[in-house]
């Protein structure tokens, strides 16, 4: 087989996988939004970070803190994102609040010592937040978490430094959390890819066969891919995880692109023939290959497509 033909097949496949990966990404973002996957994961990881079995679950306290609670869209949602500054402010306040003493006094009716008229409240708290944090730490039992927080206090000299140190600690942790999230989402993306491939009968083996045998079809797809790359149109593809209507429009436009070029997808007459021939195993393998390929994500297939186009162009003699 000629090298140029292999490159053309690669470009066409890249385009094909890119379009469907975008569809998978749209569905995944919508699913993540609806199930609060990201917010829930953030909650679990912050919960783990602030877990202190000796004192208390500071993760639960953080999410009950007024500033974080206000980030919730509704009563049972989880914030999708917490800035490091907000995290640091809330944590310093929670630790500091352990030094607070609130004294209540029951005021009874003068002629009836049991008849309560009102309850008076008096708060005793340190006004300097840095000192308040220190006193809050003093009120904690020894634990690895307390020891870690004490380290922040000992290495800083004022509230601003303390806040910066805790913010940096949170940012570093969040970098790792992003990695964990990517690993966790891979499985979900593969399942969605598999569902898309089954629903639309995206069979890689059939496609490769068609690209290999139908020269006109292959060249049309390559032209389309080159045009799109030149226009840089794909990079403008935005995913809106909130608005389902927008997502559906995006999905529709991608399907139109596919239909315009009559890609071999869907359950049509030739699929019935496939059934007759009992080629189920090959069909299933084709679906699995497609699902696996789609789970790599749209950016990956875009890169593959661009690189293959550049190599192909480099090989053509200038006129």
């Amino acid at each position, binding site marked *: 087989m000629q090298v140029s033909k292999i490159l053309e097949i690669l470009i066409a496949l890249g385009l094909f996988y890119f379009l469907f990966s975008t569809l998978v990404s749209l569905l995944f973002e919508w699913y993540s939004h609806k199930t609060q996957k990201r917010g829930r994961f953030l909650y679990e990881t912050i919960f783990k970070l602030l877990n202190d079995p000796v004192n208390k679950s500071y993760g639960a306290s953080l999410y*009950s803190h007024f500033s974080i609670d206000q980030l919730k869209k509704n009563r049972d949602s989880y914030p999708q994102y917490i800035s490091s500054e907000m995290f640091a402010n809330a944590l310093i306040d929670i630790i500091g609040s352990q030094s607070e003493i609130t004294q209540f006094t029951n005021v009874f009716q003068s002629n009836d010592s049991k008849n309560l008229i009102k309850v008076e409240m008096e708060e005793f708290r340190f006004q300097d937040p840095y000192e308040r944090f220190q006193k809050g730490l003093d009120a904690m039992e020894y634990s690895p978490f307390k020891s870690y927080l004490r380290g922040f206090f000992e290495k800083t000299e004022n509230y601003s430094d303390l806040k910066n140190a805790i913010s940096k600690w949170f940012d570093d942790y969040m970098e790792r959390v992003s990695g964990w999230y990517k690993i966790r989402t891979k499985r979900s993306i593969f399942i969605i890819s598999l569902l898309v491939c089954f629903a639309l009968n995206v069979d890689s083996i059939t496609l490769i066969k068609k690209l290999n045998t139908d020269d006109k079809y292959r060249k049309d797809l390559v032209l389309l891919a080159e045009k799109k790359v030149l226009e840089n149109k794909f990079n403008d593809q935005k995913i809106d995880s909130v608005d389902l209507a927008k997502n559906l429009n995006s999905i529709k436009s991608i399907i139109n692109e596919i239909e315009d070029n009559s890609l071999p997808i869907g359950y049509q007459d030739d699929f019935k023939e496939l059934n007759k021939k009992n080629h189920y195993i090959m069909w299933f393998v084709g679906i699995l290959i497609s699902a696996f390929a789609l789970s790599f994500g749209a950016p990956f297939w875009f890169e593959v497509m661009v690189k293959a186009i550049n190599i192909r162009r480099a090989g053509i003699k200038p006129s």
Partner: protein
Amino acid sequence: MNDIYNIHSHIFTGKCAPKDFLQVGAKLGDGASSFLKWLILTRPVSWIIVKLGNLIPKRILQFLKIGVMASQEEVFLDLKGAYDNSQYSGIKIVALTIDMDYMSDPDKKPEKDFNSQIQDVYKLKKTYPNILFPFYGVDPRNPDIKNLQNLKRALESKTFAGIKLYPPNGFFPFDIRLDSLYKYAEENNIPIMTHCTRGGSYYIGKNVWSVIPDNPTSLNPTHPLMPIITARIAAYKNASDKSFRENARACNLFTHPENYIPVLDKYPNLKLCIAHLGGDIEILGLKNPDAKSAKLFQTAKDIEGNTKSWYDIIKQDILIEKYPNTFTDISYSLCDENCMKQLSSDLINNLIDQKRVLFGTDYFMVAKENAELKVVAVGENNLKVYFPDLMSKNNQSYLF
């Protein structure tokens, strides 16, 4: 009506309970119940429960609707809201916290541990100082109880108005680790509320007998009742009816009202409320229209070697002159009209000291039976002239 109290309510959420909490009531394995609790607390399912809870007044849905609420404040406001437009508006609410960190195996600990539950209540008390009177939950297995530091801070600042014990979660009320707590409570006139019914939640760890020693340590080891209590443990362990060896019933060993007598003999002035009048099974005994409950009463009575019902033990052996600060409350039992009729008859015939009976509903546990105001109405309709004192004077004298 002025200065009235609901002396027995709960405002904790599902997150404060162990992961396998749904084993209580539903006979599921711990894996299945953990999964079910996770499922109920997931957003789509809790959303459906809330929506259905608003549309269908099915009792269990109402209970689950409260259980899936996001915060203790939300639960508290739901209870407050139930009274706001009624003749009981302005009622003061005693919210009983429960330490549930030890009611299951360590790997099933609640998402929101006890200290976080308490921290939220601290904030709530600051927001609603005039209507919220929380009680501090105590479990002797919590190492905090050794020096009582956190408890004293909570009570002496008057943030918390009393102490809550929940023995069926896995400890005996006469546990030696509670000795200093009772001493402190008696010296400082601090009210203690304790659970006493065959129902309710219980220790749900895999091996219930790991928390029931054959010969438990007691703060009053030479008390004449201790050998009887030890014999009762052996009787449960060897019961021919295997259900008495399992968690739900074995935990009745912790709840038995006689367990408080060694405590009261050591601390006779202790302000102690044995809640629920002992529960419907023990109030109605063999007269219970529900044949299963009547049979359970008889079987349990035989195994425990009781000469009288728990209700009678409370009336005749605990609410007596010897212990001047003992009380009972009508919470949960008030939703059963037959129980209220029995209590009314005993009040009329002076078989129970009317000054020692308190009003409470056991919100939100009682949501499984009926709406808050409806259960209050059952109590009021049956106890008639006694009812206002239960809500006001009696609750005041217990609380302050």
